[in-house]
């Protein structure tokens, strides 16, 4: 009999305790963040979508080689000695970067491409909302050159090289030196493509 009344008391008492707890929680501010309207504060070293500052990119291909997935694709065209290309730090650029694509559909956000960059032009941004309906749209091209410009750069170079070769040929005809005309020793020799 004692057990019986103890059970009743325990039931009533514990229910009231539980109700007190839940009632208190009615007035606790919600932890929910109204996401699209209010965005959570990201940590300082958050890794998200990459960005490439093409003004500073020298087309050295170090990031493409560091990428574990091989999703960075860089194509370059040598610049003419007459063209004066500089990075924002005043460093000389020897290449036109005609193509710089990153396939974000495959990117694993490991940040390994960021560290080798000699000019710190590739870095992580805080943008994480870039979903697309088509997979192709996730291949970002960072190159600032238009197709016409790229074409122009290529013809410029081939014209220049042809001229150089002609000069060389003329020179070698004058003085018998190396049999084969060496490609022009443009100031790009140190940072060659691939």
């Amino acid at each position, binding site marked *: 009999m004692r057990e019986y009344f103890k059970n009743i008391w325990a*039931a009533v008492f514990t*229910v009231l305790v539980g*109700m007190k707890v*839940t009632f208190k929680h*009615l007035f606790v501010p919600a*932890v*929910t963040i109204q996401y699209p309207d209010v965005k959570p504060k990201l940590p300082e070293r958050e890794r998200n979508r990459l960005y490439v500052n093409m003004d500073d990119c020298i087309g050295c291909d170090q990031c493409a080689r560091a990428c574990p997935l091989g999703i960075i694709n860089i194509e370059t065209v040598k610049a003419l000695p007459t063209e004066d290309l500089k990075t924002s730090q005043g460093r000389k650029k020897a290449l036109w970067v005609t193509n710089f694509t990153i396939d974000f559909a495959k990117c694993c956000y490991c940040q390994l491409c960021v560290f080798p960059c000699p000019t710190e032009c590739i870095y992580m941004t805080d943008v994480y909302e870039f979903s697309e309906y088509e997979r192709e749209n996730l291949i970002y091209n960072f190159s600032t050159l238009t197709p016409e410009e790229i074409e122009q750069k290529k013809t410029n170079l081939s014209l220049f090289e042809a001229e150089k070769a002609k000069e060389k040929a003329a020179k070698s005809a004058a003085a018998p030196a190396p049999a084969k005309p060496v490609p022009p020793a443009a100031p790009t020799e140190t940072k060659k493509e691939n």
Partner: protein
Amino acid sequence: MTYDFFYKLFGSQVIAAIIQSLLPLFVFILPFALFAVWLERKVSAHMQDRLGPMRVGWHGWLQTVADILKLIQKEDIIATANDKPLFNLAPVLVFVGTYAAFAAIPFTSAFIGSNLDLGVFFIVAVSGFVVAGILMAGWASNNKYSLLGAMRSAAQIISYEIPTVMVIITIVMITGTLNLNTLSQLQTGHFWNWMIFGGPVFGVSKFLMIPFMIISFGIIYISTLAEVNRTPFDIPEAESELVSGYHTEYSGMKFAMFFLAEYANMFAVSAIVTALFFGGYQSPIGYIGHLLGLPWLVPIEQLFWFTAKGLFFVFVQMWLRWTLPRLRVDQLMTACWKYLIPIAFADLIIIGLITLI
């Protein structure tokens, strides 16, 4: 009163009766169900430190309207193995059983669907329809979980009807009436005339009755909670074990009807508890209408008080839902047969003796 008004307006008893019978559905139950679903989601969310629906309207208040619009557009799926006539009939029956209970509930002194002398008895009887509907739904779904849910529901509702009725008998014993309108009128005046505080007759018996009235109220509240299948007695629809029990197989408007019936039922039992113990539509502190000499204001105030009291008990139901875990079947039966029924019985006898004083 409203019936007379419509009779004068249209000059036809049939039209007046139809309007009178549909009035609570469109004026009260549908808006209430929409509001209660929203309230339930908000209450549950805030009790769990979340926000709940926030995007449709101010703090998501139009969310349930949007949900209903979605449910109306949805395909009405009937599986090939379903028992089609029963399957289609079940939600209607459940809703009819719930809605019929509203006929005897006095919303104000000016509006009562039908001023039945057997009001409480009618409600208890007619809510038995719900069991039939639920069993029908579970059987016709041809789904073992639905059938399990329906069987549990039948067992539960039938068991818990006994303590409910016993408590109703105690009240009837004191007041001598089964008419809910008369019951509400008896508890007029201020809140100390409510049945929970021993009723309107002043005397020693009134004070002796108070603790037993509180026990009665606890019993009827717990057992009505079980009758409307709310947590902690929600084993018939246990989302986590029976995938919502008897309404698993329903979709679209039929599912919405079950839902509507459930929320209407929540209010119905709260209204019964209110009418029996908390003065029905009576104001606890007097009427502004009497104070200002505006008699037409009184029914409106009464509607307000009735809704407020009903909503409070609906809120407590929600509050309990997010506090207590679900009972096991044997615990459910233990709580009913070993605790509620003996206590209700003892309570009945003691209150009977007190009324003799």
